[in-house]
């Protein structure tokens, strides 16, 4: 299934400055896997060392948060758009 992955501004430098990348994938997990296979430098900013999506990385399929769907097993179909949207956090030690 051909899906478009929207790259957030802070990660575009690691994706050849592209604001979106087309991949062929049946699930969100597959799409992100293909994205990070193609652009290896993205991996550490999207995933922990254990391979889990970082908590401040929000992923939507056509405006629906995958946390409320099937997470990375959320199926995708032709023409879907996957958006990676940051949330921001910080604070004292």
């Amino acid at each position, binding site marked *: 299934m051909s899906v478009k992955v929207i790259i957030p501004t802070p990660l575009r430098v690691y994706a050849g400055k592209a604001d979106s990348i087309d991949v062929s994938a049946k699930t969100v997990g597959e799409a992100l896997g293909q994205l990070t296979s193609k652009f290896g430098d993205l991996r550490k900013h999207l995933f922990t060392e254990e391979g889990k999506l970082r908590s401040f990385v929000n992923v939507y399929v056509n405006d629906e948060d995958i946390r409320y769907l099937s997470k990375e097993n959320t199926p995708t179909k032709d023409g879907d758009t996957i958006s990676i949207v*940051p949330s921001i956090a*910080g604070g004292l*030690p």
Partner: protein
Amino acid sequence: MANAAQLKISPELADKIRAHGAQTYPHECCGALLGRDTEVADRRVYREIHALHPLVNRRDDSPSNRFSLTSQDVLDAEKAARQQGLEVVGWYHSHPDHPARPSQFDRDHAWPWYSYIIVSVANRIPEEMTSWRLADDRTEFECEEIGLQRVAS
């Protein structure tokens, strides 16, 4: 990161960040930095802050030592930036009664490319202001020089 950008911000906007930190003390303030990157003749990149987009700290369970912004806050800031012909180039927050140095928690949650301005606020008095960018390998923050000057529109 090659050629770490210098950040330019007007004294007025820098004062607004300080004022926001004083206003929310003893809680952390936060907001978006709106601006653009400009590459100059010697291939150095300057990041110019043209506007701020103050936001509400969503960590109402621990606002004195934590701040967070939702993805919707980020999308709202990006929309505000686009409306002004700018983009979100970073975020600011305050450290109540703590130095303007990024913490491990800051680093664990940071995104690359963004500038992170931190202002220290002690007893409601704004003090040092610093800016940082996460290294490509996420192992550290690199200090970004702040140039206080008016930026061209």
